[in-house]
Structures are given as structure tokens and as C-alpha cells.
């Protein structure tokens, strides 16, 4: 399955995942209480510079992923134009863009298996409470295996619908999809049991 890791191979891809995650968490926590516009502006510039150092193609991809924030930026702009508190609006918007861009940076430069390794390390202390990292790894593998399978099934159901209806597929395809998920769950449980179970 596709992941959100950037195909633009950068230096940041080689930085270890744990420290990257910690730095991003720290950065978001530090920026949140800040009210001074120059500080936020500086942080944004620094982050933009870091992107540019990592590469132009990478920067463009990162900018594209911030696009999902436009409705909120629009709402903020309209609201603060109305109330006249433009400075306060800029602080909120800048803070939001910084936090999202910083988090995206980690996602874009860290492969799924590196992320999973961090999670497994973090969860080790919980093993004594019955949270088995092996079971978690199995659950993750199952989701990655079966999301495309169910997506495929949804596509088949839509096609079967289209073959007999001029309209777009309706919610009627959801129940058969749920049944497929339930059946697959039973089959995989049996396959697991056939090879030794949990």
C-alpha cells in the first residue's frame, strides 16, 4: 500500500525516527503558548528554510500537503477581518501551519517500519499489562494486507451496481462490504489457527 513517506529521498530520511518524533512533539508544545508574532514568523521561516535545504522537490510536495488547511485559513481570514484583530488571526494561523508542517515533515521523512520500531520500543513497558507487541505487529500487518482487498471488493460492488443502474452507487453497497469484512475476519482467524494461532 502507498504510504505518505516522500519519494524525494532527503538527508532527513536518514535521521533516526525516535529523535525526529521527539523534536516534532517538543516543537509543537513550545509554539503553542507563543503569542508574539515575530517569534512565530521566525519559526515558520526557519522551518521553510529547513525544507529548502532538504530539496526543492521535497519543499513543493510539503507545501502541497498543507493545502488541506485552506478552509480553516479562509475562515480565520474572514473572521479576523470582520473583528479587526488581524494580528491575533495571524498568530493563530501561523501557529497552526507551523505545527502541521512540522508533523508532516516527520511523516514525510520516516518509513513505516521505522515508525513501527519506535512504537514497539515505546510499548515494551506495557507488555506486563498483557499488551503483546507481536500481536500488535500482526494486527498492523492484517490491516495493511486487507485494506486493498476490501477496497477492491468495494470497487467490484460499485461496478455491479453501475452495470444495472444509471446512478452512482448508494449506501446499499455498505452492508455487503461489512459482510465481506466479517467473512474475511473468520477466514483469517482460521488461517492463523491452522498455522499455530496467537
Amino acid at each position: 500500500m502507498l504510504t505518505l513517506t516522500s519519494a524525494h529521498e532527503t538527508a532527513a530520511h536518514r535521521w533516526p525516527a525516535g529523535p525526529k518524533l521527539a523534536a516534532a512533539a517538543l516543537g509543537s508544545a513550545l509554539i503553542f503558548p507563543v503569542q508574539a508574532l515575530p517569534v512565530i514568523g521566525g519559526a515558520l521561516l526557519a522551518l521553510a528554510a529547513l525544507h529548502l535545504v532538504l530539496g526543492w522537490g521535497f519543499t513543493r510536495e510539503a507545501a502541497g500537503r498543507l493545502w488541506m488547511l485552506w478552509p480553516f485559513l479562509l475562515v480565520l481570514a474572514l473572521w479576523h477581518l470582520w473583528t479587526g484583530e488581524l494580528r491575533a488571526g495571524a498568530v493563530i494561523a501561523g501557529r497552526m501551519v507551523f505545527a502541521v508542517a512540522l508533523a508532516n515533515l516527520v511523516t514525510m521523512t520516516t518509513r513505516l517500519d521505522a515508525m513501527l520500531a519506535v512504537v514497539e520500543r515505546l510499548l515494551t513497558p506495557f507488555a506486563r499489562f498483557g499488551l503483546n507487541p507481536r500481536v500488535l505487529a500482526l494486527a498492523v500487518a492484517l490491516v495493511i494486507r486487507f485494506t486493498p482487498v476490501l477496497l477492491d471488493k468495494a470497487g467490484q460492488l460499485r461496478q455491479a451496481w453501475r452495470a444495472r443502474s444509471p446512478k452512482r452507487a448508494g449506501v446499499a453497497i455498505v452492508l455487503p462490504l461489512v459482510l465481506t469484512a466479517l467473512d474475511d475476519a473468520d477466514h483469517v482467524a482460521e488461517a492463523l489457527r491452522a498455522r499455530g494461532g496467537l
Partner: protein
Amino acid sequence: MERNLTHIALFAALIAVLGLVPKIDLASGVPITAQSLGIMLCGTVLGAKRGTLAVLLFLGLTALGLPLLAGGRGGLGVFVSPTAGYLVGFPLAAFVAGLVMEKWRAPVGMAAFGGAFLGGLVVLHACGIAGMAVVLGKTLPEAAGLALPFFAGDLLKAVIAGAITQGLARVRPQALLSRG
């Protein structure tokens, strides 16, 4: 034990698929993304505990960088964006929907609608509105205004969740783990 795990994993995949399929028609010609319908169904079909775990697994994989959210979004960024409150609300919504289903011995369709309404509408939007208020620096009523346009669609989704759960109870009663 194996069945618990596979049900949780397959429903996590189902939530993703309902968000990733091109929009489907709700009633007459109103397209929706069905991701929150998936959240409701986790609760009403799997029950509170397994349903919550399925949602947590789905969110965990999203956070790790899989594009499983509606429209192929994902990664850590969405967890600090204005809609982060909705993500926090997802597992709570499934839990509440499952709990209503387990405790309220009404007919299946009725209980599933009640659970989906309370979890997928009340609890989910309460969390989502709180999140928007924090990130956008607005008061709760102001943030609620932003969520208002989505209430009608979500109410309809709760009705659909009720109908699907009832349909499932009819064709495959033993599959309804929330009433197991």
C-alpha cells in the same frame, strides 16, 4: 482470541475503505464520505471494546503515515490540525455506540441508531468542536458554528448505521458481536 484480533483488524481496514472509496450517494444524489459511518458500525457491530480497539488501530496506522483518512490523508499533521478533535472523538464515538448497543435491549435497529446518534453525532462533534476551538483560538459556540453544516449528513448516517446493523442482524445474526 484469533477471531477477536482478526475482527478488530478487518474493521480497522473497513473504516479506511469507507473513507477511501469515491463518494457514495446518500439518499437522492447527496454524495458523502462514509468514514464516520465506519466508526459508528465498529461500535454497533463489534461492541464497545472491540469497536474501540479497531478505531485505535486505524488511528495508530494513520499516525504512523498510512493515508487511510477520507481523501487519502494521514500522517502526524492531521493530529495537530483543526480537525484533530474529531480524530480524538473517533474511538470515544465507537465506544459509546457499542455501549448503547450492549446495554440498551431495544430492537437492534433502534439501539444501533441510538448508539450511532449518541456516539457518532453527540460525542464525536463535542470532541471535534472542542478541538477546533483550541486550534483556531475560538470559543466553543463559535467553533460549533463551523460544525453545524455537517449535522444533517451525520444524522442521516446514524439512521443508515441503524439500518445496516439491523440488516446484518437479519442475514447473519451470529455476526453481531455487540449482542453476542
